[in-house]
């Protein structure tokens, strides 16, 4: 819920009726409108009392603070979420995924995990990867820990999460990595020694056993002037995770409870040692509000499924996902490749592309721009009709790519066959299956028919 301009106006000088124009706006109300949309700083009104200003700042602060960890292209920005359930608007900021390593790990283990931080997945025209590395001090030796921090900084631009019980270890590592804006994890036992030595802008994680303790520690950190907080209530099971994450988000959004008004971190690595369990808990963390998820390790398969699940849940339900409108080729498409046409709705594309790959037969797939509508919806709104399909076939010079002149339509729009033949003289229009699952069989049969004709 963004603050309302009328509520802001009431706190402006003379109840917002001074209208002196010194802020550059015609009225106090105009200023209030701009403030509500974060378009102007409160500083521009020089008549604001300190008390009103504090009240306004409080009103304007999002219920869940926005926190940045790391810097540059790989910075992780979390928090400032607005809803409990994604259909109510959208989840805004995908959780940062972190790999954990310790200063007692073997050289090979560290090298292997650093290599994994460079893994990437490209999908839906976005590149994604693991964002962070959690560095654990298991040795209790501050020099050894700092050496790991130095090495990791030299070899990856991933953001850092610093985990050490001993305050000296933590502070030495913080000093070494400060420029990289790390997330410094503190507990009730060490925060007093650590907090005063951190910059006020530092990102700090309040680690505690349970919600009450986490809220308590966050409250103390706030009093010390640290505001970029992340909460770790120490969830140790699926039930804990659902409870803690739900309660934190609810307390922040529905009750404006300041000590829990922060993004969260979930140590899947601490909740389960078995990698399969860790992975599933991480998947649960994605569905249930975690801001950062820390794993011990990740296999190539687990990497892929986690990143895809994250992208799924953080897809904006208000926008249809699309792929680029162009000709995609599969299984070494050559002049004999079958030519299929469909829409650029991403899910249609992935279903068709997956089954096409399964068929192992060469195929060109034309994805016509329908603004992300599926075949039936696009047809019924005039965005996937003979004229638009013919235009795509001509524009992409499909006739030059293949030696035959057969075009396969999705089964759902079989009725377009006749008109499309009129639009594309010389082409034979075939009707494909309705469901992508039936494509491999259809393509096999098409090939057989072609082979026997030849």
């Amino acid at each position, binding site marked *: 819920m963004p603050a309302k301009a009328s509520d802001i106006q009431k706190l402006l000088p003379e109840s917002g009726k001074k209208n002196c124009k010194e802020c550059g706006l015609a009225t106090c109300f105009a200023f209030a409108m701009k403030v509500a949309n974060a378009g102007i700083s409160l500083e521009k009104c020089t008549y604001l009392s300190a008390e009103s200003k504090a009240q306004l700042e409080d009103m304007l602060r999002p219920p869940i603070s926005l926190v940045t960890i790391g810097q540059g292209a790989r910075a992780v920005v979390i928090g400032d979420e607005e809803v409990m359930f994604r*259909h109510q608007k959208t989840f805004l900021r995908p959780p940062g995924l972190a790999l954990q390593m310790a200063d007692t790990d073997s050289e090979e283990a560290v090298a292997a995990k650093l290599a994994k931080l460079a893994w990437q997945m490209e999908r839906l025209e976005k590149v994604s990867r693991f964002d962070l590395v959690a560095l654990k001090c298991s040795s209790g030796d501050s020099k050894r820990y700092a050496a790991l921090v130095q090495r990791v900084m030299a070899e990856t631009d991933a953001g850092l999460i610093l985990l050490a019980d001993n305050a000296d270890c933590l502070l030495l590592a913080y000093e070494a990595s400060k420029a990289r804006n790390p997330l410094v994890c503190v507990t009730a036992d060490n925060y007093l020694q650590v907090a005063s030595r951190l910059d006020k802008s530092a990102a700090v994680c309040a680690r505690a056993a349970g919600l009450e303790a986490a809220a308590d520690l966050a409250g103390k950190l706030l009093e010390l002037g640290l505001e970029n907080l992340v909460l770790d209530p120490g969830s140790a099971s699926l039930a804990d995770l659902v*409870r803690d994450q739900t309660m934190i988000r609810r307390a922040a959004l529905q009750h404006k409870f300041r000590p829990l008004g922060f993004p969260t971190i979930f140590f899947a690595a601490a909740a389960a040692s078995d990698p399969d369990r860790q992975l599933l808990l991480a998947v649960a963390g994605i*569905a249930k509000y975690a801001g950062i998820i820390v794993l011990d390790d990740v296999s190539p398969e687990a990497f892929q499924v986690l990143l895809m699940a994250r992208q799924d849940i953080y897809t904006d339900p208000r926008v249809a996902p699309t792929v680029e409108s162009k000709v995609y080729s599969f299984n070494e498409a050559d002049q004999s490749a079958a030519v299929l046409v469909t829409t650029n709705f991403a*899910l249609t594309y992935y279903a068709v592309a997956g089954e096409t790959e399964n068929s192992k037969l060469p195929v060109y797939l034309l994805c016509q721009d329908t603004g992300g509508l599926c075949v039936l919806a696009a047809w019924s709104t005039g965005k996937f009709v003979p004229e638009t399909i013919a235009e795509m076939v001509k524009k992409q010079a499909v006739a030059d790519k293949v030696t035959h002149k057969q075009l396969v339509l999705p089964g759902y729009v079989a009725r377009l066959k006749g008109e499309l033949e009129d639009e594309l003289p010389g082409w034979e229009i075939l009707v494909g299956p309705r469901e992508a699952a039936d494509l491999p069989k259809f393509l096999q049969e098409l090939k057989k028919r072609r082979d026997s004709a030849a």
Partner: protein
Amino acid sequence: MGKFLEKYPGEIKELRLGTEGKQAVLGGQNTLPFHFFEGRPGKLKLALEVTDSEPSDWTPALQEFYADVKSSPVEWARKCVDVFGAEMIFLSLNSMEKDLPAAEIAAGVKRVAEAVRVPLAVFGLGEKEKDAAVLPVVASVCSGMNLLLGPVLKDNCQEIAAAALEHGHAVIAQIPMDINLAKDLNIRLGKFFPLDRVVIDPLTCAVGYGLEYAFSTMERIRLSAVVHDDKTLQSPLIARVGKEAWKTKEAVQDAGKGVLWETATAFTLLLAGADIVTLRHPESLQRVRALVH
């Protein structure tokens, strides 16, 4: 933290399936999924899928995995229960594709239902005429066995649900991923069929293939039922995960990925509100069960 807890007005009644001695109960929640901290979450059932004739469209890896039993639905179902610990069997009637006589198909279903000590869900092809011809025969041949029969669609709900009601079965009402369609079909069914004997199948998508649609559809249906006390949506939910997960490119390439896709999809949908999840690989069942029970 007590002041942040919530009580909800809506409730899903318990659904009992199966007969004396092999009954199972699912649903029964008065809160949201896994909200043990503020209410009574529902009872979940993890089902393994079996087909009533050899599953030609399953991936080679799965075919090989079930090579010793896949030609006998009875043996297959028994193994799923006795060896793999399935809490329910989800029997797909793929023999309907070969247009076998309905009585023969129904006799096969009865043999499977008698052979296992867990409840049985029986699923047709999703083609309205064929299902309307076969499922009522299954209902009558298996009279009194308290099966879960489906899918019941908008256009054949009369025929199938009436037969299910007459012979004491519950039904699966299927709609394409839309809360309003789910409501419409339940209202239609509710005129003559008890809604606490209906399980909603809003269709499922695997990770990377539209999971978010399945997730939000299920979540919305469950929120309406529990938080907004919408009586027309107070039915358990089924997520048919196995089929969707194992047709992904990833699963076809590599059985290990198949298990990952299956578990990750199942797990996400359980968090959205699924009460029954169907799976194809017992390894997936073990992994999901280890965390949810």
